[in-house]
């Protein structure tokens, strides 16, 4: 059970959080996006072994989404930051 440092609330236990997967940049405008690019945005993720960027939501707390860097091997939380903050 991970101990996740919410950027707003501090360290909280994993059951308070909702996993949002690896963030993907949304290609726009629709009219100019190829089927392949759109398919990749919807379904293709890097699924890194090791440090991995993920979206999480403190659903059982402040309700805010944030970015977390987590090692998928050791499960160590490397850092969390608010969306838009320097990555």
């Amino acid at each position, binding site marked *: 059970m991970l101990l996740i440092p919410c950027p707003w609330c501090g360290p909280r236990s994993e059951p308070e959080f909702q996993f949002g997967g690896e963030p993907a940049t949304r*290609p726009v405008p629709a009219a100019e996006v190829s089927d392949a690019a759109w398919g990749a945005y919807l379904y293709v993720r890097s699924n890194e072994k090791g440090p991995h960027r993920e979206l999480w939501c403190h659903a059982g707390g402040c309700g805010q989404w944030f970015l977390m860097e987590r090692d998928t091997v050791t499960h160590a939380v490397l850092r969390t930051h608010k969306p838009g903050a320097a990555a």
Partner: protein
Amino acid sequence: MRRLPDGSRIARAAPVAFTWEGRPMQGLAGDTLASALLANGVRVVGRSFKYHRPRGIFGAWAEEPNAILDLSWQDRAGIARHDPNARATMVELLPGMAARGVNGWPSVERDVYGLIDLAHRFLPAGFYYKTFMAPDWHRYEPGIRRMAGLGRLHDSADPLRYETRHAHCDVLVVGGGPAGIAAARAAAASGLRVMLVDDRAAWGGSLLWQGGTIDDRPATEWVADSIAGLAEATLLPRTTVFGWYDHNALGLLERRTAAAAGWAEDRLWHVRARQVVLATGAIERPLVFPDNDRPGVMSAAAVLQYLREYAVLAGERVLVATNNDTAYDTVLALCAAGAAVTVADARTDPGPAARRAAEAGARIRAGSVVAGVGGRRGIRWAEVAPLASLSTRERLPADLVAVSGGWSPAVHLFSQSGGKLRWDEAEAAFLPATPRPGQHLAGALAGAASLAACLAGGHRAGLAAARALDRHVDLAPPRAPDTPAPAPIQALWHLPLRGTRQWIDFQNDVTVKDVALAAAENYASVEHLKRYTTLGMATDQGKTSNVNGLAALAAFTGREIPQVGTTTFRPPFVPVSLGAMAGLRHSALHTPIRHLPAHAEHLADGAEMREYGVWLRPACYPRAGETVAQAIQREAAAVRTQAGLFDGSSLGKIEVHGPDAAAFLNLIYYNEVATLKPGRIRYCLLLRETGTVLDDGVVARIAPDRYLLSPSSSHTGAVLAMLELWHQTEYPSLRVAFHDVTAAWATLAVSGPRSRDILRRLHTGIDLSDAALAHMSLAHGTIEDLPGRIARVSFTGERSYEISVPAGYGAALWQHLLTLGRDDGITPYGIESLSVLRAEKGYILIGTDSDGMTLPDDLGMSGPLRAKKVDFVGKRSLLTPDATRPDRRQFVGLLPADPGFVPAVGTHAVVQEGGARRSIGWITTSAHSPALGRSIALGMIERGRALADAGAEVELFHLGQASRAVVTAPCFHDPAGEKLHG
């Protein structure tokens, strides 16, 4: 076997009556069920899993593989209790307990299935996989399951209450033996929050039976003083730390059955510890020799525990077989208790401990092993042979064989935490290599072999934990007298005796031969060995068998033990009941059911209440003598002809505020919502980014910067979460906020041709004229002097008014509207009746008519894709080849050829292709329509709109029954929508 007249801390003045296999017996307060059975001379306590061999008590605690019993009793609260797989060694004996053996019939002493053992040569490892595959394993499975296995569940609900606790601490100390107590003392002296946990009822661990001297007084006094000095710490006896999870989260199971009366039974603790001290001790290994599973072969350490703790002498003529010094504590204790003891020590030079034992009267056979035992339901003799010449045997009379094959540190939690093990050749054991961050190891787990070393290591671990949290401790370490180093252990695995059966895993009946077979068939990986032979997979998880199994595999594959490695240790360390895992999250508390504001009124009006998602809502309101189906038809007809009253309070209400509310919602919704004028309402779809329909509902614009969304009752949470996700991650610069006000409002719908007449009697400041309040519009004002609003939306196809007032007035408004509408025949109608009405209108129900692949155009809504310029959620997905292919399933109506036949939901529409039926879609909704006086259906059919335009007939097929139906547009009633305004 007998109870000695003195010694031990057992409460002799407090007899406890219990039964074994129906026979009345007496134990003493403080006994475990196992010690009480031994004191009563019971040898055979069970039958083995596979071969139905008689089995006796082997161990004294969590490592016990054999004594798994069926236990019934009535607890203090008078509740009938049942544990189908009680580990007798861990059960504190309570009055009235009725214990029975498992896996034996008619009893474990005379088990007819014991004949299976005669056929053992035909039942090697993997014989299920080889023998029972053709034609189908499932044909054999019931019979095999009946003959194999352990206890049987009673099929009644668990009457007990369990609870869950969450706790944080600075230092969690696992293990209440000398090392753990020393660590807790040191850590607590720094002022940190300490939790000390031990799975026994009494503190002290091995000190309980080993005794000793600490700080110049009896160890028991030191234990009592140290525990008393931990007044600020959380002390959890009878509690097993069963799992180590990420980031120092540990799972604890507190057993409260025998504890002082409390509200709950077992208690599950979720503990997050900043530092953890592991002092989990070690588990004695059995010796592997022919027929070593016979009742009367026991762990030497267990024999000592039964003697010292419970004053139970497990045998009078004892052969102690060992390869290390620790068994000599047992030898000395047995000699002192008056038993005749012979020691077979595998070491040719056993050292000073053996000499002391000889002085105490034991016969020492150096360089010898036990090579066989006799006696089926209890040992009668044992054979001793020189290790160098196993055929030279001497038969000794014996009623107990106490064995010690060395010790395996209890590395389970350490390994679960990700710790790596190293094989220590000198100790013949896997030891922790290096502690993980935030973790400290002490005592026998860390390889300490003496009391002095345990105390010193525990103290050091406590100090280190405190230091890691920047605390300094000034406390003298506890001291025990130095003892001479023990003579080294001599690793001893199975004996090279052909044609014998030597057990490695008692509980799962795995022998040396099975390991040899696995190796011969190239199951050479330890993980394969485990799964092929089931070694270590029983409820004891191989606590006594793992290392012996690895050693055998190493021998048969020509490798060293460290090359073989260990299987992965996983939680839980001991079985944890599902009740404890669930805690209070079951039955009504599992998913709290939500009630409508007028819940009591619905019940008073005779509602048939059913669960819809998290809501308990009226399905319909059957009158006396009326079936549910009849009620639905009556209610639906009443709405069409007069008026009905519906409680729609569960419908979602999300308020969206902010100067950018319009811009944001336009990016989210499929339909255009920015052009919606204040006071107007639009029916909209909400898509996922994949283009599929997530939800539908009406969007009302209350003011230029304020919207009210009405998601489906069961989708409100998901819609709110989606709005937050998109706002926070994609459009954070837009100034908009969301607020779920579902529970703040009661919403009642008056629907039907007479609804306007009823509304006119309502005392309201809202102008109800169609000019002021047209269909798909809403207005705010007073309603019977309450602040509220009225919306003209309809899910029935009739003129409808949705009246919202603060939730606390919902019940009063329900009664008031029924009174106002009485002369117009107002009829309460429930969800099921509404569902018939909406089916007549062809209104979709998301999740019923649609599924996870349905696109808006499939539902006949393609306009917004062409008209809207912004990149709303899911837009690009609607332009893909799959979204635009012509043969997609489309939402249509179906009129069965037989108007009296209502085809089941899930019925397929089929076409004949190449001599076989091919499904072109299915029915999603069907009903008898009171308005049409016939059956109707809705469904998703390939190229459905073209079929409807052509008035085509399709074949329906369901569970072997064929029928026919005409494809139509989805709306059966008032397709022009005149009644919405009429």
